[in-house]
C-alpha cells in the first residue's frame, strides 16, 4: 500500500512523524482528504482534528489552526499547538472549557476579548472531542 510521510510541527517541537496511508484535515474551505501522490497544495486549517489512517489503526491529533503543506510524498502540518489524542489532558481541557464559558457568559463590550474567549472555547471543545473520540 502506498504511504505518505506526515509531520506535525509546532513551535514547541515536532509532535507527530509517521507514515500513513491517508490524512484528512479540516481546512477553512471544508474537509480535505489527502492520499499519497496528492498535488502540491497549501491550505489553512480550522481548529479541529487531523485523522491519520494507517493500515489498521487511525491516529487522531487535535490542532488549533495553522496550515497544511503537501509536497510530493510529504505532508507537513504547522500549527501553533497540536496534541495527539493520547496525550491530551482531559481535566485540563475541561477546565479550559469552563473558563472560556464563564468568560463568554460574562457581559463584555470589548470585541477582541469575546473573540479570544470564543477561540479558546473552540480549542477546548476540540481537545475534549478528540480525547473522547466524538469525531
Amino acid at each position, binding site marked *: 500500500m502506498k504511504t505518505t510521510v506526515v509531520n506535525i510541527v509546532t513551535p514547541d517541537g515536532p509532535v507527530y512523524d509517521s507514515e500513513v496511508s491517508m490524512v484528512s484535515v479540516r481546512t477553512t474551505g471544508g474537509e480535505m482528504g489527502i492520499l499519497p501522490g496528492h498535488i502540491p*497544495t497549501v491550505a*489553512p486549517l480550522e481548529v479541529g482534528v487531523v485523522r491519520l489512517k494507517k493500515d489498521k489503526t487511525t491516529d487522531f491529533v487535535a490542532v488549533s489552526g495553522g496550515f497544511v503543506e503537501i*509536497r510530493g510524498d510529504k505532508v507537513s502540518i504547522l500549527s*501553533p499547538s497540536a496534541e495527539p489524542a493520547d496525550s491530551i489532558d482531559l481535566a485540563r481541557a475541561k477546565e479550559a472549557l469552563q473558563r472560556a464559558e464563564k468568560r463568554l457568559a460574562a457581559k463584555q463590550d470589548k470585541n477582541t476579548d469575546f473573540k479570544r474567549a470564543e477561540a479558546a472555547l473552540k480549542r477546548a471543545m476540540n481537545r475534549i472531542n478528540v480525547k473522547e473520540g466524538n469525531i
Partner: protein
Amino acid sequence: MATLREVKQRINSTKSTSKITSAMHLVSSSKMSRAERNAKKYVPYMAKIQEVVAAIAQGTSNASHPMLVERPVKKSAYLIIASDRGLAGAYNTNVIRTALNGMEKRGQKKEDVVIFAIGRTVADFFKKTGYTVVDAEIGLPDQPAFADIKAIARKAVGMFTDGTYDEIYMCYSHFVSAISSELVEKKLLPITDIAPATSTASYEFEPSGDEILEVLLPQYAESLVYGALLDAKASEHAARMTAMKNATDNAKELIDDLTVLYNRARQAAITQEITEIVGGAAALE
C-alpha cells in the same frame, strides 16, 4: 592599616559572595544549555513556515497583502526583548542601547515610537524615560512556551495591521555561543526580506493564495517573535553565566590579595609582640 579582625571579616564575606556567584554560574550554564536546546527544537517549525511563506509570496506575484507592503512611516513600534532581572552583565543595557541607537539613527523622537517590552528591565526603563509602552510581558519563565508570548505578539501584529504604526523593529541579543552574542535590530513588519524559496515546487492554493497569506503572515510574524525570544533567552543565560564567572574570578583574586594582607598584618602583630616582650625583659635587667 586594617586590623586583623577587619581583614578576616572581609575575607569571609567575599568568600560567601563567591559561593553564591559560583552557584549562579552553574545554574545559568545549565539553563543556557536548555535554552539552546529549545531554540534548536524550534528550528524545523521556523524553517518550514519560512519556506512556505517564500513559496507563496513568489507564487502570487501580485503580493499586495498589507503586511508585505511598505508604507510611509509616521509612527514606529519597537519590540524589545531583554530580561526581567539584572546580574547579567551589560546584557540589558546593550539591548536597550541598540533600540535607542536605532531610534536616533532614524531621527525618531519619543512621540514617534511606541514600545512593546518583553522583560521588566525594558519596561521600567522606557516607562521611566517617558516613552509610550503599549504592552509589557513580565515574568516569563526561563523556558518560555509559544503560548506565553502569543498575546503580546498578536497585539503587536494586530496594531500594525490596523495602522496604529507603520513598521515594527525587533531588538534583542542573538545567541552565538556561550561566550559571545550579537545585538540584533530586525525589521519585523512589513515583511520585505523573505528569503527566496529553495524549492521550486509550485503549489495549489486552497482556497486562494491571498486567503492563505491572510492566515499565514500573522502566524509567520508571531513565530518570528517567538524565535527571537528563544534566541534572546539563550543569550541572556549565556550573559549571566559569563557575568557570574567573572564575579567568581574577581572574588578569588580579592580573597588572594586580602589573604596576603591578612598574613602581613598577623606577622606585624607577632613581631610587635616579640619586640615588646624583649623590650620589657631588657628593662628588668
